């Protein structure tokens, strides 16, 4: 869902206030805007640039540089699949193929019904019990394809298949 201009404006103002409009805290400010709105709308860039005395290109550059920040809405549930070596050693490749097939999307994509977004991640620091998956702020260990299905099950309506 795209937030209205008022919602964007107030999210930007709150984030700036919380960090005293310090330009060096730009990442924290962007995290807060994204936590509030789900993404960082393009309309958020000019007021951030003005308040922090940076060019719009600089703000845009920072948003584009870091994998966390997104300018388009994500699905209701964002699933991060770890693709790093320690997870690959325990079958992360097969898990990734399964997850993509199950949800009918590729990495960096959102299901058409807006329910799930799949993102790659390179290491969640759970390397002794892999493969690892992060859903929201929760990390899951030793995720087999079967366990992946069980993990996404609560996010589906009863009896429903993902689009």
């Amino acid at each position, binding site marked *: 869902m795209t937030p209205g201009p008022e919602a964007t404006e107030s999210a930007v103002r709150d984030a700036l206030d919380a960090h005293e409009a310090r330009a060096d805290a730009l990442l924290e400010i962007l995290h807060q805007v994204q936590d509030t709105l789900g993404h960082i709308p393009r309309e958020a860039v000019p007021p951030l640039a003005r308040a922090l005395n940076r060019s719009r290109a600089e703000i845009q550059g920072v948003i584009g540089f870091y994998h966390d920040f997104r300018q388009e809405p994500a699905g209701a549930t964002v699933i991060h699949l770890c693709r790093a070596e320690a997870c690959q*050693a325990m079958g992360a490749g097969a898990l990734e193929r399964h997850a993509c097939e199950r949800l009918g999307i590729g990495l960096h994509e959102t299901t058409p019904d807006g329910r799930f977004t799949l993102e790659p991640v390179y*290491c969640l*620091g759970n*390397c002794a019990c892999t493969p690892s998956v992060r859903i929201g702020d929760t990390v899951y260990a030793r995720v087999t394809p079967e366990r992946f299905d069980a993990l996404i099950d609560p996010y589906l309506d009863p009896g429903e298949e993902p689009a």
Partner: protein
Amino acid sequence: MIRVFVPRDTTAAALGADAVAAAILGEAARCGLAIELVRNGSRGACWLEPLVEVDDGHGRRAFGPVSVDDVPDLFVAGFPGRCDHPLALGDPAEIPWLARQHRLTFARAGLADPVSLDDYQALGGLAGLRKALVMEPQAIVDAVKASGLRGRGGAAFPTGIKWQTVHDTPAEQKYIACNADEGDSGTFADRLLMEADPYQLIEGMAIAGLAVGATQGFIYLRSEYPRARDTLEQAIAHAGRTGVLGDDILGSGRAFHLELRLGANAYICGEETSMLESLEGKRGLVRFKPPLPAIEGLHGQPTVINNVLSLAAASSILADGPEAYAALGSGRSKGTLTVQLGGNVKRGGLVELPFGTPLRTALEDYGGGTASGRPLRAVQVGGPLGTYLPEALWDTPLDYEAFAEVGGMLGHGGVVLFDDTVDMGHMARFAMEFCAVESCGKCTPCRVGSVRGMEVIDRLRAGDDREGALALLEELCETMEDGSLCAMGGLTPKPVRSALEHFPEDFC
């Protein structure tokens, strides 16, 4: 009252510790038993997580790995009282996997509630800071020099020399920047420390501040570690309230302030100058060196940049004296190395050993071989930019120089095991792919070379002009090594070359 410990650590939670804790509380209530539940840090024995412990006032007893389904059964057997149960492990300190280690930095890990400052002090915490507060700054720097401590982030630069440079550079404002952007695959020691013993890091940073004359510190934490963030936030806030941090450290009149900053998922920000850019609210582009960050670092001011474990080690060096630290280790690698066993490993986790222990000891005696039970084939040491080692090199001692001699690097101590189903041609390609995804883009050999590297490895594996592809890959690796500003482009050829050298049969 009987205390029951269930770790709050990421790995323990990823294996169901939160649900186990809830089940234990529920079952205790149902049985009318009064218990105190403590969410402790992890001891790092990931293979035993969730590792539940009981303290009835007569010593601790461990049970693990405990699942929610085991909980009713445990209570039937007499838990949390003394009982026989297949999951009972006895005194956790005597579990051989833990008992044989040499814990210095991780001595307190898993013993207590990580955000309890009282527990931290009861276990010897703040002794180093109290000593540092009555020492001359130069004496603190000298102690760290004498300990032989080398940077644990990977580059192994002598920590005391770095501190000396910042100490000697006059400035209005100096900074301590802790690099907690632990992005290397297969490493989790920083996370474990921050989640199990955060005050040790805070104490080490305050000591660094006193040593070099810095009154402001930052911890740059990767956003992939939400639990570490939570624990650090609580610990920093509590340290501020109790005067461990702030304008008047422990009533000394000396100041040190600490701020937690969150990254935003960019591997390159673990590179120190890229991290500085990020801390200034910019894209994480690598800076040219010189100037060294110790002279012109954050906001152009002298800055100590150290890894989590280096800063944490400073507190035990001050507390126990540099001689105790320097007495451990081998050659120029002093103290202990925290090996992190990950990937296809039976008994994975954090193993703290004196430098010089053979890699094979970690793999076999601690790791117990592969989780799959299949033969171990390749081991990557030192993260995604580290060398793939075949069995012929597993007797290499874990020390910086010995690893360099065989073309490897210890890095941050990550050890990832692969069984015989691994396709090393794929892993070599992945090294290039990872570089392409995570390059900051400043240097052409890294930004473009990594993409070309994937293409050449694809051609090589397809058998398309093999000789030509090999020659091109060699030239490309050389260009990346010679023409990149930082380790990202400069070391990506390491896993590629080592895979090709030691496992050529996977490239046909």
